[in-house]
């Protein structure tokens, strides 16, 4: 049974216990967050996030704008480090290692935990160089080896047939959907364990979106995926588990802070959520 927060109790306790709903057999937890809070200078953007992310599952973060779902996502690969004034409290552990521990190198974190961004952001270079950049950083220099990685990654991202004849052409000439699949391929090329996706389809049309969603289903056997989405149907379609975030007025500061409300198997979130706010959100009555 997966017990979820009592709405009135302060810290959101999430103990995802047995195999619930359609969620798969329990893999080990890839990430565990405990009392995670993120600050931008003095502003607490999100607080009291307790989540366990399972291996080889797709976890969706949903919620209204400003609820902190992207902020939490960016904790998992320490992308928040790039924002001046951003600060993390609580713990985020990856296979038991605190990602914000003093000896942890953010660069090493990002080699294992890839990220796909909201707006496709290919490098203004050739398709080949976009994919080869990551492996080259890891010291792979032999052309044959790089060629193989490039081809495999493009195959995996279902882009190979469309671009195999023009690998030396600029990536900027691809369509938006192709660019986003290229970014997924670029991410796969460094063989990460986890892929974080921050609203990867929000700039794409429905056809390109469905291709990305199919792709996610195909690659989840090899990767653990966390996706932030504004689109509830997308969360319902692709994810095994869903975390619903919302904003509430923080009594201490009188400002709106993001909070995790409910984290459950997706089927439960969309059919029989534990929390009333979740139900209101997924039925379109709020947010």
């Amino acid at each position: 049974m997966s017990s979820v927060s009592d709405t009135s109790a302060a810290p959101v306790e999430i103990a995802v216990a047995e195999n619930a709903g359609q969620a798969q057999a329990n893999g080990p937890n890839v990430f565990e967050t405990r009392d995670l809070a993120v600050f931008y200078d003095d502003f607490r953007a999100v607080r009291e996030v307790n989540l366990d992310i399972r291996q080889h599952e797709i976890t969706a973060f949903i919620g209204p704008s400003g609820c902190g779902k992207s902020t939490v996502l960016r904790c998992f690969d320490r992308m928040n480090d790039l924002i001046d004034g951003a600060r993390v409290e609580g713990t985020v552990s990856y296979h038991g290692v605190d990602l914000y521990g003093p000896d942890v190198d953010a660069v090493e974190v990002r080699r294992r935990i890839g990220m796909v961004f909201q707006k496709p952001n290919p490098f203004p270079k050739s398709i080949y160089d976009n994919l080869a950049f990551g492996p080259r950083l890891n010291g792979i220099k032999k052309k044959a080896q790089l060629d193989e990685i490039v081809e495999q990654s493009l195959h995996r991202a279902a882009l190979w047939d469309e671009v195999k004849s023009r690998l030396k052409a600029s990536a900027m000439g691809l369509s938006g959907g192709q660019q986003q699949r290229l970014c997924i391929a670029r991410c796969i090329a460094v063989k990460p364990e986890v892929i974080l996706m921050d609203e990867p389809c929000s700039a794409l049309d429905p056809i390109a979106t469905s291709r990305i969603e199919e792709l996610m289903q195909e690659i989840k056997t090899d990767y653990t995926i966390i996706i932030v989405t504004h689109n509830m149907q997308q969360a319902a379609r692709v994810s095994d588990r869903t975390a619903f975030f919302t904003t509430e007025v923080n009594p201490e500061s009188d400002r709106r802070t993001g909070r995790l409300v409910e984290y459950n198997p997706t089927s439960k979130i969309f059919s029989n959520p534990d929390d009333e706010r979740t139900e209101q959100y997924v039925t379109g009555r709020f947010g």
Partner: protein
Amino acid sequence: MALTTPASTGGRAARSITDGLTKRGSDLRGKLIEGVLVTALAATLLILFVLIVDLVQRSWPVWTDRGGDFLSSGLNSASAASAGVWSGIKGTITLGLIVCVIAFPLGIACAVYLEEYAGRTRFARLTRINVRNLAGVPSIVYGLLGLGIFVNTLGIGRNVLAAGLALSALVLPIVVITASEALRAVPVAIREGALGVGATQWETVRSHVLPAAAPGILTGTVLSLARAAGEAAPILLVGAATGLLRTGDQGFLDQLGGAFTAMPVVIFSYARQTGEQFREITAAASLVLLVLVLAMNTFAIWLRNRYDRKW
């Protein structure tokens, strides 16, 4: 009689919409402003046009009578017949090279630090403001700096190297500012993309940010080079020759020995002489400098268009 049938009200409504959309008289104020703007543009273009035509016209005898000989002769403000600009061209090219070698790497490195590494610290903010102030310091002050520090304190001597260092100091703030702006224009998404696949900050800057900013950086630096090429005051203070400087078999390296000059100083020397011939020579030398600077600017524009990228 009540004429408010549906048809007539409809007609009236349509008429009032037509009235509302029709131009009410002529927009005098708008026309006036446009006229002022066009005049300003015309005046600017006219000044440039007159300048070039005047220079060509006045220098015409020099080109027809002496031509290549004028370009290859040394500085000689005593004899109009043997006065030339070669030592000036040579000096200006050498100064330009020194600026390229010293000011550009230093300035770009400063900009990379300020934009990519320094973050939001008070130190970085103070530095940025002060670099902007430095860019406004008059060039004569940099000449005094060159004389005081490079010539006297460091003992480099009154040569082309000291002058090049003074000019480097002069354009350094401009290089830092333009390079900073070019770096700031690179989208954050490119940095995130590189960091996201596990690049270090330096790998990100080297492989993605600098190449993406290169067109802007190049344009800014070449324009600052053009500025350096036109400065007379700093190199005069450092000790550029004004009276006589034969070229003969002097090579580029001989300028390190002390005897050197540059185009603005050559023009200055000839302009001080009397006689119709020297006026022609002054115009001819000015035209040479103008062509040099325009060539650099054209090169900058070409570079920008060639490497301009979209993201």
